[in-house]
């Protein structure tokens, strides 16, 4: 039993780590209407900035995080202005391919200036709390707390503020939004800024749990996308819940399918759910009348 509880904990933490990435993807997917493959590398940029600033400021993670958030927000908004804005009216694939290009470019800049060595956050490593065999690692608690906080903030922003309403309106129909006097440009800037902030936090979380390398974000893109889709695009809660579900499903399955197939298993789960609910767990299906 404790074995399974520990597996669930392991899965939950892994899920939470990619949950924020999934959230960033889900959000920009919902509003900008394409899966932004640059999200991963924006995360990487965030992680690098944070880890370098932390090293430069004698270990201040806060300073690192703030710097990271500022930089990724700028990167994200810059991507919008320079690229995505101009592709707004093109098919989804155009923006998608461009975002892959941006992803490559961001990564190449990191490796050009910083090389390939791994970096690590200076975080005290402490032993897990042990409740008769059920182990909880303190840092995981912190990360979970932050993830939940960020999620709550996003939720409030999206569903309880006028900005969120405008964002959903632009997501639904950009032309109509403009024709209704909504300054879609500003809404998009807000969106990309939020997505940048989320990416930074997600990148830092991943960086803390693992090590900071140039591939950090790119490697998480697929699981994050899977979570975003499984949750239902445009459903931030769904993205996070799906990320955790996928994480837990993966880890709990390991006694049965082993450690290689567990990754495939989460994709199988994704496909299985989509067969039953084609719009994801919490997505709104479109009806024909």
């Amino acid at each position, binding site marked *: 039993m404790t074995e399974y509880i520990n597996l669930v904990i392991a899965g939950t933490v892994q899920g939470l780590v990619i949950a924020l990435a999934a959230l960033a993807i889900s959000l920009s997917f919902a509003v900008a209407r394409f899966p932004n493959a640059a999200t991963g590398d924006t995360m990487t940029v965030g992680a690098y900035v944070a880890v370098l600033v932390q090293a430069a400021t004698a270990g201040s993670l806060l300073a690192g995080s703030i710097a990271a958030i500022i930089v990724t927000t700028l990167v994200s908004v810059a991507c919008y202005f320079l690229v995505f804005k101009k592709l707004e009216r093109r098919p989804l694939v155009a923006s998608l391919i461009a975002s892959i290009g941006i992803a490559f470019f961001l990564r190449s800049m990191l490796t050009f200036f910083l090389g390939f060595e791994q970096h690590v956050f200076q975080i005290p490593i402490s032993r897990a709390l042990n409740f008769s065999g059920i182990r909880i690692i303190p840092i995981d608690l912190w990360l979970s707390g932050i993830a939940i906080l960020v999620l709550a903030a996003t939720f409030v922003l999206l569903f309880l503020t006028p900005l969120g309403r405008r964002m959903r*309106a632009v997501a*639904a129909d950009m032309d109509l939004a403009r024709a209704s*006097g909504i300054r879609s440009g500003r809404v998009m800037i807000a969106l990309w800024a939020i997505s940048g902030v989320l990416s930074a936090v997600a990148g830092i979380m991943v960086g803390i749990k693992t090590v900071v390398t140039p591939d950090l974000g790119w490697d998480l893109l697929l699981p994050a996308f899977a979570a975003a889709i499984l949750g239902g695009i*445009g459903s931030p809660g769904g993205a996070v819940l799906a990320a955790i579900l996928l994480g837990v499903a993966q880890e709990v399955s390991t006694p049965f399918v082993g450690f290689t197939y567990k990754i495939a298993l989460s994709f199988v789960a994704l496909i299985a759910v989509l067969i039953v609910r084609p719009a994801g767990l919490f997505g709104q299906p479109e009806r024909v009348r």
Partner: protein
Amino acid sequence: MSLLSIENVSAGYGEIDIVSEMNLTVAEREIVTIAGTNGAGKSTLVKAIMGLAPRCNGAIAFDGHDLLKLSAEDRISVGISYVPQVANVFAPLTVTENLQLVEAVADQRARIQEIFDLFPALAARRRATAGSLSGGERQQLAFARALMPKPKLILLDEPTAALSPALVLQVLQLIQTLPGLGSAALVVEQRARQCLAISDRGYILDSGRIVMAGEARALLADEQMTKHYLGRA
């Protein structure tokens, strides 16, 4: 002084002009109907006024503003509302949220209540998402949203299409009350007979040009009009 004055406007999507050399005015508190054959360019003209046509030359003045210098969003804020012909509600948002999107009103909550009083069908479905509304309900919602900011001019692209007769009457009556509320209306309509009946003036379009303009009553009486554009009474 007219509220809206369009001079020598040509507009289109690609190289060719869909509407050309248009001249048209709307005075304050005036109701003007635009009618014409399908594909004549009525919607294109309205889009040009709103800044949504990809290409537009000429001069459009509104209430002292040079519209061609303003972005579509800004044209709304100088006092024009617009209800497109298709896709005119935000499907994933609820009815109330659709209305709340209009933020340039003093007391939004009170205004929404007024609107709901005008459209009881909407009030009944206020928490439903707009996407689940019937065709006619959507039309009402779109109209309602345009009324929210109490615009000086309201552009309606076929507001009565898909409405039941009762609602057609209601909408026409609503349009009729607009001058009283301080608004002018430019209405594109295929139910031209009924619409002209409540209008001050009208324009008839065919193939991107104005083929006839004048007092509503005069147009209604014209034999040629009936034969080519308005149909039997």
